[in-house]
C-alpha cells in the first residue's frame, strides 16, 4: 500500500513539470519554420502475396512534416504499407512519390523490436544509423548528440543487453534519427512497452518530431496513441483507406482530455462498423 502511494506521489511532480516545459517549448516554436520533411504521394498502390491481395488501391497524399497515424485491425496491411513506403518491399502496382529525389538516409523505419546489434555498444549501434556517412570524421559526435537527444547520453558505453525495453527502443530511435531523416516510419514502435514507458516514449516521439520536422508515419493498434500524437488518422479496411480523420486539437495535447476521448470513441466506432464480433479487434 505504502509502496504504491509513494510511487504516485513521486511521479506526479516530474510529469507535471514536464508538461509545463513542453507547453513552453511549443509556444516558443509556435510557427514552425519551413519543414525539412518530404511530402508523400501514393497512387493506386496495390500489394498481393500470392492470391492474397492485401492492399487494394491506396490513394494518399501526406504533406511535408505532417504526423500521420495509421490504424486498422490486425492483418489489414498496415505493416505492408509501411514497408512499401520505406522501400523494403516492392509494390505489385501503383506508385509512391516523395516530391523530390530522396536519398536512402532520408527515409528511416523503426520497428516494434529495437533490432540493436547485441555485440555492439550503444554508441556504435547508433552510428549504424549514419548509413554511408558512417566513416565520416564527425560520425561519433553525431551519434553522441542523437543519444543525448533521446536522453541516453550516459549509456553510450553499455551493451544493449543491460538496457530496459524502453531504453533499447530509445537507442533504436536515436539510430533512426542520427542521419536526420526526412521521413520516419514507425511500425508499432511502442507495442511491447509497459503503459508508463509508453507515455514517456510518446512524449519523446512528439518532441523529436516537433524539433526536427520530419514527416512521421506511425502505425499503431492503439487508437488513443494515434489521436494523442497525430495530425491525421487513417483507418485501413479491406485494403483501402476507409476513413481519413483530421485531428484538430492543438498541441500540446492533454492525455485523457474529453476532446481526445471523444475523437478516440468515434474512430473506434468506425473501426468496429461492419464487424459482428467487436472483441476481434
Amino acid at each position, binding site marked *: 500500500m505504502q509502496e504504491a502511494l509513494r510511487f504516485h506521489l513521486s511521479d506526479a511532480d516530474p510529469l507535471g513539470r514536464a508538461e509545463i516545459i513542453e507547453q513552453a517549448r511549443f509556444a516558443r516554436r509556435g510557427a514552425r519554420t519551413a519543414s525539412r520533411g518530404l511530402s508523400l504521394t501514393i497512387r493506386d498502390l496495390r500489394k498481393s502475396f500470392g492470391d492474397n491481395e492485401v492492399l487494394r488501391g491506396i490513394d494518399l497524399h501526406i504533406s511535408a512534416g505532417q504526423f500521420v497515424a495509421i490504424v486498422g485491425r490486425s492483418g489489414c496491411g498496415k505493416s505492408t504499407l509501411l514497408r512499401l513506403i520505406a522501400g523494403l518491399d516492392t509494390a505489385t502496382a501503383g506508385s509512391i512519390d516523395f516530391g523530390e529525389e530522396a536519398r536512402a*538516409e532520408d527515409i528511416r523505419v523503426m520497428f516494434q523490436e529495437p*533490432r540493436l*546489434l*547485441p*555485440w*555492439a555498444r550503444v554508441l556504435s549501434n547508433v552510428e549504424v*544509423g549514419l548509413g554511408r556517412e558512417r566513416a565520416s570524421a564527425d560520425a561519433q559526435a553525431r551519434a553522441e548528440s542523437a543519444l543525448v537527444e533521446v536522453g541516453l547520453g550516459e549509456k553510450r558505453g553499455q551493451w*544493449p543487453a543491460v538496457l530496459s525495453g524502453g531504453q533499447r527502443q530509445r537507442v533504436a530511435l536515436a539510430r533512426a534519427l542520427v542521419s536526420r531523416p526526412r521521413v520516419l516510419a514507425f511500425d508499432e514502435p511502442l507495442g511491447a512497452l509497459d503503459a508508463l514507458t509508453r507515455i514517456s516514449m510518446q512524449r519523446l516521439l512528439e518532441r523529436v518530431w516537433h524539433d526536427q520536422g520530419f514527416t512521421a508515419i506511425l502505425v499503431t493498434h492503439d487508437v488513443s496513441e494515434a489521436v494523442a500524437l497525430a495530425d491525421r488518422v487513417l483507418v485501413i479496411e479491406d485494403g483501402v483507406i476507409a476513413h481519413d480523420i483530421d485531428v484538430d486539437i492543438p498541441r500540446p495535447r492533454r492525455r485523457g482530455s474529453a476532446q481526445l476521448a471523444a475523437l478516440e470513441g468515434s474512430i473506434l466506432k468506425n473501426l468496429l462498423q461492419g464487424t459482428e464480433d467487436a472483441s476481434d479487434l
Partner: protein
Amino acid sequence: MSLIDSLPRVGAPKLPRFDGLIPWIVPLAIILVWQLACATGFVSARVLPAPSDVALAGWKLLLSGELVRNIWVSFWRASIGFLIGGSIGFTLGLANGLSQLSSKLTDTTLQMVRNIPHLALIPLVILWFGIDESAKLFLVALGVFFPIYLNTLHGIRTVDPQLIEMGRIYGMTDGELFRRVIFPGALPSIFVGLRFALGIMWLTLIVAETIAASSGLGYMAMQAREFMLIDVVVLSILIYALLGKLADSASRALERLTLSWHPAFQKH
C-alpha cells in the same frame, strides 16, 4: 520510507578466497584416496600404481627428455591437424552459409560423408599413408572438420533475419553486413563447434598414435604397455586429460574475450 526499503538487504554470501579452490577439492580427494588405497595394499601396484609412483615415473621421463619430446610431437600433430581440418571446415561452413550455390553443390555430399565415423577409416589411411605423419594429420583434420563445418554453417543460417534486414536498411555493404552482423551473430555457434572439435582432436590423436606411430604420447603408452610399465601408461593417460583440459580452458578464455557482449558472459 517504504516497507521494502526498510528490509535488510539480502546478498548472496561470497567467499572469494575459497571460490577458486572449490573445483579442486574433488580431484585432490580422489588422488588422496587413490594414494591411500595403494599404500595400504588395497589396490595392487600391478593393477594401478600409486600417484606417487606415477609422479616419479613422470619425473624420470622428464629428466631423460623423452616426456617433453613425446608431448611436443603429439601437440604438434594435434595443432597442425586441427588447423588444416578447422580452416577447411570453417571456410566451407562460411561459403555454404552465405552462398546458395555453394551449399547446393557441396552440402548434401558433406552430410553423407559425415555419417562415416572417421576412425573407421584407419585401416584405409594406414594403407594410403603408412604410419607416416600425414596419416595422423589426415585423421585429426577429418575429425575436426565436421564439428567446425556444421556449427559454422548453423551459426550463419540462424543469424536473426531481422538484424540482417536492419543492416540492409541502414545501407551496409555485403562486407560490412558480414563483419558487423552475420559473423558476430554466428560466433557463439562457431565456439560450440570449436569446443567439440578440440575434444575430437585429442580422441583421434590418441587412437591414431596407439595404433600407428613411432613417437608421441600414444606411442609412449603402447611401448610402456609392452614392457609392463603400468605407471607410464597411467602417466600418459593423465597427460592426455591435462592437455584436453588445457585446450578447453583456452577456448573458453577466447570465448569470454570475444563474447563479452553476451548476457551469459557478463560479470556483475
